[in-house]
């Protein structure tokens, strides 16, 4: 884990380069998959999307199929890279913890001025829940999608009932994923959450923000720094 307090900069290193790359690979491929997937449903001709300027290609099934496959390769690579990284580094910070649902409600209420926000670890409770929700849907989508792709290979026969249910699950998980992504993006409507945005690009967030909102994480980082021989902690 590369997380550490950068006292001189007044920042905290929150995300490694590989985490940033994984996040954006997943985000961009998911966006392409959702767009091309709805194109395969088929919806764009019916709802006039193909008539919008520059979107005539959206009704081209072979093209959106290729986009879907290509984005699926990127997503699958990124997800399996991420899962392996978790196992190897034992970094389970993003995994939901007991009491997260209650804590998430408290944080949301505090945002609208009701009650006091509980101190957070590296991630807010709702981030951990959102990760689990989006992650599990992505995992279902990858597994069912791979079965759908496999059965389309020349000469391959897969039980039709299995394909039928995999397809319904794929479609259901897509709807849930879209809701999850919308919820994930809506989080940035709340002003306090916007302080986390720089971490998605530079990997760093403001130290003062961490001390105030992620005090449990801050204490953990301080303890790690003091116990480390390489600590550059001067404060």
């Amino acid at each position, binding site marked *: 884990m590369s997380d550490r307090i950068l006292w001189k900069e007044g920042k905290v290193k929150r995300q490694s380069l*590989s985490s940033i790359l994984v996040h954006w690979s997943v985000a961009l491929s998911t966006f392409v998959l959702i767009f091309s997937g709805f194109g*395969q*449903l*088929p919806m764009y001709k*019916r*709802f006039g999307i193909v008539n919008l300027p520059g979107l005539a290609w959206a009704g081209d*099934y*072979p093209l959106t*199929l*290729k986009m879907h*496959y*290509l984005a*699926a*390769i990127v997503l*699958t*690579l*990124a*997800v*399996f*890279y*991420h*899962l*392996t*990284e978790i196992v*190897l*580094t034992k970094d389970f910070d993003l995994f939901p913890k007991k009491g997260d649902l209650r804590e998430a409600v408290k944080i949301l209420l505090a945002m609208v001025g009701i009650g006091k926000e509980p101190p957070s670890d590296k991630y807010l409770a709702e981030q951990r829940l959102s990760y689990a929700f989006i992650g599990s849907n992505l995992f279902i989508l990858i597994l069912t999608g*791979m079965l*759908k*792709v*496999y*059965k*389309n*290979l*020349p*000469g391959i*026969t897969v039980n*039709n009932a299995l*394909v*039928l249910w*995999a*397809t*319904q699950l794929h*479609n259901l998980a897509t709807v849930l994923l879209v809701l999850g992504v919308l919820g994930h993006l809506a989080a940035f409507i709340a002003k306090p959450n916007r302080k986390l945005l720089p971490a998605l690009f530079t990997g760093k967030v403001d130290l003062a923000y961490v001390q105030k909102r992620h005090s449990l994480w801050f204490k953990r980082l301080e303890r790690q720094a003091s116990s480390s021989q390489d600590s550059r902690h001067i404060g």
Partner: protein
Amino acid sequence: MAQPISRREFLKRSASAVAAGTAAASGLATTVQAASGAKRVGMVIDLTLCDGCNECSLACQRKNGHPINPNPQGLTPENYLYVQSVSIDTPSGTQEVHIPRKCMHCDDPACAGLCPFSINTKTPEGPVVINEDYCLGGQKCKAVCPWGIPQLKKGVGFYKKLEPLPFGAGVMYKCDGCIDLVRAGEAPACVTACPQGAIKFGSQEAMRAYAHERAAAISGYVYGDQEAGGTSTYYVSAVPFAAIDAALAVQGEQPRMPVNAENVLHGVNGMAQALLIAPVAGIFAAGFAAHKKLTKGDEANE
């Protein structure tokens, strides 16, 4: 318990079996029992024998309970088999060619493979069948079919139950290869109705072999073996199919008969294989990155 049979009866039955086997292998039999073991079935449509009488289309309409239309002008939700007629100029003079058109029942059907709800399926027997109870009529199957075979019937089907949600338009209909008859060991209605014996039916391998034998015998051509990566319907013609397709185009006929028609699914085979190995590649990449990091850490500690 099996009944004992006389020597004369044994010889009679043996002769019948040999005759039936020879007939099937040579493509002269019109029916092969397909129900047992779900053996894939196929069909040969011999254009040198078809006289355009339209009996196959009428038999199809009767079999599917459709209103009888003696002179259909194309494939419709109530006419799954349409006989096209074209005049082709050949060195030996103008030839009238009649072409019964219906679903080709592809080996790797794009219509089924890309159905968004997987309710269009390739049956183990070979025919590609749309589940009319759940089809929403999105017409994607028609768009990805190299021949645009499935036809939309608006205002019917499952989507009506989903209203007012704006999903669906009707139901897609096409030839189902008379799958019920095939499963009962019988030949499709068009096969038995053809007075010219122009439509042969049997195991897919036997039909493919017969189509090529027949084409070789008349120095003709086969259509449907290579198209869309392979189908289970083989047209045999003495006239090149490129000429037939050109004539269809001139007449504004649908469906056309493009030689070497492509299969949308085959355009993504490479990417499909890459996707299936992507998990291994992801795991390997993460392992490599972790190893590099650890090695770097060890070097720094030394």
